[in-house]
């Protein structure tokens, strides 16, 4: 197999590092004046610190907040864990109830399940058949002892955009903190926490064509006092996230954020058009079903089921196509996507689904070649079936 012929349609799992970001990071790694610890007081440390703060400002501008609202973490998984565990543990004397949804990412579900095992009550909201969690279900689920709502901006598997502004309005009225996992939304659509009514918002660099291993939790300084840190030690990030800052990764994150802010509009239009091109081709194949709302979706994600075809065989027929079945973080689950099951898909249909996700470097040729591969694979597998 010639790797260079592979078609990458898995940007929702990880968006390829932008060469401009890679170059900037390489420069920073080789720069002798950026080798200091940003927490050190000497010139080396302060130079590294300045680079970190410049990147922080870029990340902050992307979501429309002051730089002091951005706390760097090792990624969105850590940011989600910090938001959820940090809030709930700190609020234990006030109440122990959280509202979330069954279609959240595992990095939200699993910390909540851990808190459930420790005695916290969690209400899991169901989505509708389009993959949207209706705001009225949130309103009905809130209790006097609710301390946190965690509902994502864009579902990572279906690409469906959630009515976050409505959630924010409900939470604001009821005085409950709202955490938004905005990993698939930042850089693609409005994710300003104030506009959304979000108290806490998570995102990561590698979904923005930045490096893996670095993310951010966005929260107002006043909110920090209501949080318990996960990591304790040097007191970095206002005591909320101890640990030496990964300067080169933060620099990469900062540039990725700048590029996303500058190019989001053009990228979004182009990627949406490519997604439509892909869907038009897929819709011609027998047994293809779109998962999720047809219009309320982020630009690049398409999740389709192939009725009458085994998902593993479909993937085995597509060695040249880099796509996901379900979430990359849940790729070990052979029973099919829990998100698609929540939308009402059968286990078999959920297991026969692919998530195709486009990004900044996707082209019309990628789409056309992917369609040719999918047509070939679907035709052959249908021919084998009883």
């Amino acid at each position, binding site marked *: 197999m010639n790797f260079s012929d592979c078609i990458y349609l898995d940007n929702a799992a990880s968006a390829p590092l932008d060469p401009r970001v890679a170059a900037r990071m390489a420069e920073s790694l080789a720069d002798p004046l950026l080798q200091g610890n940003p927490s050190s007081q000497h010139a080396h440390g302060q130079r590294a610190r300045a680079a970190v703060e410049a990147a922080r400002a870029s990340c902050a501008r992307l979501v429309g907040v002051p730089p002091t609202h951005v706390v760097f973490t090792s990624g969105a998984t850590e940011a989600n864990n910090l938001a959820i565990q940090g809030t709930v543990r700190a609020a234990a004397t006030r109440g122990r109830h959280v509202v979330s949804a069954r279609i959240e990412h595992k990095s939200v579900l699993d910390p909540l399940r851990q808190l459930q095992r420790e005695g916290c009550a969690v209400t899991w909201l169901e989505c509708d058949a389009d993959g949207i969690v209706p705001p009225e279900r949130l309103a009905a689920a809130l209790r006097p002892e609710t301390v946190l709502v965690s509902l994502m901006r864009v579902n990572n598997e279906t690409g469906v955009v959630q009515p976050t502004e409505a959630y924010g309005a409900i939470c604001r009225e009821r005085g409950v903190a709202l955490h938004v996992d905005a990993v698939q939304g930042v850089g693609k659509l409005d994710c300003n926490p104030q506009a959304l009514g979000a108290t806490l918002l998570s995102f990561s660099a590698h979904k923005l064509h930045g490096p893996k291993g670095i993310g951010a939790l966005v929260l107002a300084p006043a909110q920090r006092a209501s949080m318990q840190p996960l990591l304790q030690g040097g007191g970095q990030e206002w005591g909320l996230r101890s640990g030496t800052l990964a300067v080169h990764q933060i620099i990469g994150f900062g540039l990725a954020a700048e590029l996303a802010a500058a190019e989001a509009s053009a990228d979004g239009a182009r990627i949406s058009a490519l997604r439509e091109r892909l869907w038009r081709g897929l819709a011609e194949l027998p047994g293809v079903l779109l998962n999720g709302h047809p219009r309320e979706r982020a630009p690049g994600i398409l999740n389709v089921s192939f009725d009458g075809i085994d998902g593993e065989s479909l993937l085995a027929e597509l060695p040249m196509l880099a796509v996901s079945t379900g979430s990359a973080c849940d790729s070990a689950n052979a029973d099919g996507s829990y998100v698609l099951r929540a939308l009402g898909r059968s*286990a078999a249909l959920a297991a026969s689904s692919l998530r195709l996700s486009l990004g900044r470097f996707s082209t019309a040729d990628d789409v056309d070649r992917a369609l040719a591969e999918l047509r070939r694979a679907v035709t052959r597998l249908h021919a084998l079936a009883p």
Partner: protein
Amino acid sequence: MSGESAGWSEAIQRRFQSPTHAWSTTGGTPPGNASPEDAPPEDALTAGAEWRCGSARQPDTGTVVSFRLQLRDGRIAAAFFRARGCPCTIALCDWLCEQLRGRPIADGVPGDPEQWLRALAAPPERMGRAFVVEDALRQCF
């Protein structure tokens, strides 16, 4: 895709990519060596003792398997399959059809699912799919 399925054995990959005993439902040149004249009739069960048929399904995984065995003089002259399932399921069906050719029908199903998976170097986690294949094949005997 799960870690186990990302590494199918060479035997499974080869038979999945080029099964020689599958019968295409879309007409044209069938995959493998079967010719249109060998096409098993759709009403094989009522066409006499020349054909034995069997099918089974597993709703949870969507696996569906069917076999058609052509008999001559008490032996299996030809064996065909159709399957919707994972690469291991398809490879297993193809391999079994090969094992069945020339075998006396009275000898029954050759071996058991555990032996079949070993023969194809398939992961033991696929035993459930192998049971569906076995169920379909047993109906032919």
